[in-house]
């Protein structure tokens, strides 16, 4: 999607201005307000609301990689939860089992390093399952990414990795093990600070990649891969790079999420979670970073609203409460179908229209 139109009377005079992130003073002002909101207001909310925001952040991190693959490179993936699981398990295993030197644990470096390792490993794992993309595309690639999900989560992790150290199915993370520097991550607010830093870093990384050579190559491959190849783009390299970056972000997401959980098990990364992430970017609008954010907010908030809305009904029909999960599934399915049928460009397109309306006002021609 193209950038929004500039406000009336604003013209670019050089490339530096044209490529700037925040092109007008008004946008800079908005960003300052956003930063105040993110860093000063949200952390002081009730911990229930901070928990919801953390969920949104986790969804953004997961969906960002999916958006990179589907929205920008055109490689449809339905197995992204597998890479998140790889990141989460790598990080958890490193924190729990790796023979860290005392000084590392004392300085609180174990968890940050394990996030990095989890991300790299998830990226490489993603490249492994992206290899078939050199030969197949479309539906066939969907099948191989689905296979990635089943092989990784349902087989390797459930049967082997989850049993390391005789732990049975779930790894419990004792309090105090998740520690960055001097801070022990143990409350929603602290998880929130970690989340917001990771989300901003990942969005910055993806956004910068997208406006440099790899990003242009990815979009060329998405629009027409044969034409891209004739233009001299090494499509296999860039497809695999896209898989690596997507897996890397998924690994970060998984490794981050263990800080919010007391225990991780393969059930945290089911196939439906992969599908959920794809649904999130479709609702937000593919091929747009804002879309990822809007989609995540929409899905998490709608589900919360549904939960709140259904509570009064539970007095009349008590079974509704225990069957809430199923209502949620159905609603999500219907939401995807409705968006694809009635609003295929997603929420970010509406946002774009609103923004343009105000930018061009009063002379919208």
């Amino acid at each position, binding site marked *: 999607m193209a950038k929004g139109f500039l406000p009336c009377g604003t013209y670019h005079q050089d490339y530096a201005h044209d490529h700037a992130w925040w092109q007008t003073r008004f946008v800079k002002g908005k960003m300052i307000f956003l930063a105040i909101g993110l860093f000063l207001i949200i952390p002081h909310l009730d911990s229930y609301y901070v928990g919801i925001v953390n969920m949104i952040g986790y969804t953004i991190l997961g969906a960002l990689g999916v958006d990179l693959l*589907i929205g920008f490179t055109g490689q*449809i993936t*339905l197995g992204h939860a597998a890479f998140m699981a790889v990141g989460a398990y790598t990080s958890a295993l490193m924190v729990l089992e790796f023979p860290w030197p005392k000084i590392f644990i004392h300085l609180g470096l174990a968890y940050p390093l394990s996030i990095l390792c989890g991300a790299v490993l998830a990226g490489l794992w993603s490249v492994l399952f992206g290899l*078939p993309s050199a*030969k*197949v595309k*479309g*539906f*066939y690639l*969907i*099948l*191989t990414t*689905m*296979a990635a999900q*089943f*092989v990784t989560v*349902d*087989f390797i992790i*459930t*049967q*082997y990795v989850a049993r390391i150290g005789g732990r049975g199915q779930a790894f419990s993370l004792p309090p105090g093990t998740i520690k960055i520097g001097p801070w022990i991550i143990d409350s929603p607010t602290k998880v929130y600070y970690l989340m917001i830093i990771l989300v901003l870093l990942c969005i910055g990384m993806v956004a910068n990649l997208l406006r440099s050579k790899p990003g242009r190559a990815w979009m060329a491959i998405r629009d*027409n891969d*044969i*034409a891209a190849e*004739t233009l001299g783009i090494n499509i296999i390299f860039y497809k695999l790079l896209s898989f690596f970056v997507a897996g890397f972000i998924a690994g970060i997401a998984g490794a981050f999420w263990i800080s919010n959980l007391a225990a991780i098990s393969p059930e945290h990364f089911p196939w*439906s979670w992969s*599908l959920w992430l*794809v*649904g999130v970017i*479709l609702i937000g609008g*593919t091929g747009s970073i804002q879309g990822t954010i809007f989609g995540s907010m929409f899905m998490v908030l709608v589900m919360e609203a549904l939960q709140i809305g259904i509570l009064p009904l539970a007095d009349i029909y008590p079974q509704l409460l225990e*069957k809430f*999960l*199923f*209502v*949620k*599934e*159905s*609603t*999500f*399915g*219907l*939401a*995807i*179908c409705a968006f*694809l*049928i009635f609003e*295929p460009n997603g929420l970010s397109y509406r946002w774009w229209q609103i923004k343009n309306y105000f930018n061009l006002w009063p002379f919208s021609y």
Partner: protein
Amino acid sequence: MSQGNLFFMTLTTGLMVGGIYALVALGWVIIYKCSGVLNLAMGELTIIGAYVALTFYQMGVPFVLSIVLSLIIGLVLGILTERIFLDRLIGEPILTVIMVTVGLSFFLRGVVEFIWGTDTRVFTPAVFPLKPIKIGFLVIGSVYLWSFVTAIILLLILVGFFQYTRWGLAMQATADDEMAALSLGVSARFVYAAAWAIAFMAAGVGGSLLGNINGLNISVSYLGLLVLPAVVLGGLNSIPGAIVGGLAIGVLQNFAGAYLDQFFPGGVKQIFPFVFMVIFLLFKPYGLWGWERIERV
């Protein structure tokens, strides 16, 4: 049990289960051939049919009649699904159509779980006799044998429907060249609806049969995913391919369970078809009898 005996037992069990897979795979291929929709909601179609059949059977309706009733409900649901969800999406990009079927599968799964819960249910009293049948040195559970026979009969009926009836020929014509078929007076909308109705019905019978073997719960919808390796093996738009692919995946799966399980303990039986599919895709992406697509700029 001797080694050779194990081999033949595995082979027959695989073929019998494969018959059910072939039936569901045929439903999948019919949708793809006629309307070009790559359907990921096949698993939910199977459990809906199976639960409807089970409900009728529990109410005291004879098994055959309850299958017929579930076929009728499948027909109605299939037409409704096509009309409400997929009719508007003709000509949209592949991701859109696939994700609508994914949304559909979430929706249907939620509805099924809401109505019937998640506990495993069994057909009581047992539909097929529990005593195994002996053929020569082979011992086969009669559930497997009867399921296989039912699946084969239905497969024959469906293939006959396609080859010899007016509607079946209309569907084949649409699959072959939609524009030509339209100009000859075939109603494409009718064909799409019929394809979904047939897929719903075939999947429902497949699910009921599988529910007879292992008991019926939400995990029967795994059948809908197993269909994918089968159709990839046979080629996405080939009806004989779907049948052969279904049988082959059934056999492969049981061989993996019998022989590979000692090396990779755990769920190798569930995973092997997908591993096989990935490797197969690397070498022969269009399957055994699928159409090769040549791409130009």
